[in-house]
């Protein structure tokens, strides 16, 4: 069965044309959270990296990223110390500090072909200074457990309305977790 990748404009315009033609079709949607080290701070454009600028530093996009201060990654329960390298394209296969995200996949089938559009929505970083208990498993360099004031990096999940393509109410949308079609996995 032919399978076609669309961008946002193509996918929405295709659905619009199908609605105009009054063909019957179902839109499939899968939303799943991932934390697979796909997105690290070195690859982020400046507009996104600036959200981390109180705890991370780099010379430019795709250059090595270092901790500017000690901080706790609350999402992964990991602590970083000043000058720790957290991401480098040349020296690391995967980032040490990575950003979780939702993968949103839309598809529909019509006339024996399937049409797909997918996008990732990154969790939002939130940085604060808090009193936290630091334990040994957060970093092998830690010798003693203690409580301290420290920068805390949290990742907030995006709201549900940002994970969808808005479609008219008459479009039937089915959510699913896993497909048996290898093309859709």
């Amino acid at each position, binding site marked *: 069965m032919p399978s076609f990748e669309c*961008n*946002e*404009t193509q*996918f*929405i*315009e295709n*659905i*619009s044309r199908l*609605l105009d033609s009054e063909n019957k079709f179902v839109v499939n949607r899968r939303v799943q959270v991932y934390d697979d080290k796909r*997105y690290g701070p070195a690859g*982020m*454009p*400046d*507009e*996104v990296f600036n959200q981390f600028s109180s705890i991370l530093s780099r010379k430019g*996009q795709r250059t090595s990223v270092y901790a500017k201060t000690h901080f706790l990654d609350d999402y992964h329960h990991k602590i970083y110390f000043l000058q720790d390298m957290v991401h480098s394209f040349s020296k690391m296969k995967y980032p040490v500090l990575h950003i979780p*995200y939702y993968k949103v996949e839309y598809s529909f089938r019509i006339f024996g072909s399937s049409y797909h*559009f*997918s*996008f*990732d*929505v*990154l969790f*939002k970083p939130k940085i604060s200074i808090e009193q936290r208990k630091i334990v040994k498993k957060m970093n092998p360099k830690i010798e003693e457990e203690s409580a301290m004031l420290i920068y805390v990096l949290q990742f907030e999940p*995006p*709201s549900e*309305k*940002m994970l969808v*393509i*808005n*479609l*008219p*109410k*008459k479009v039937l949308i089915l959510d699913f977790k896993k497909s048996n079609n290898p093309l859709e996995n």
Partner: protein
Amino acid sequence: MPENRLKSISIFIPEDVVCTTLEKIGFLQTDSVTTSSEGKFWKKMLYVKGDEVISVSEELGDYWPKDPVISICGLPNTIKTILGDLDAVI
């Protein structure tokens, strides 16, 4: 009562001009996130007015020209107004 329709366009108009146009006709920005698709990073903003929803996605980074993607799920009149207003800017 007319139903919401769909329209998605990519247009060579700066994102701030697009957003101002939407705000002028009563849409309010409710949220903004960073997304990634087609190997690019995007700033996606959501504008809402009643049952009508518009997303504006602009590619992040240093590149030119800027051509935000505008996806509208709204009334036919709203779509016509937005397309007319943006055409007037061009």
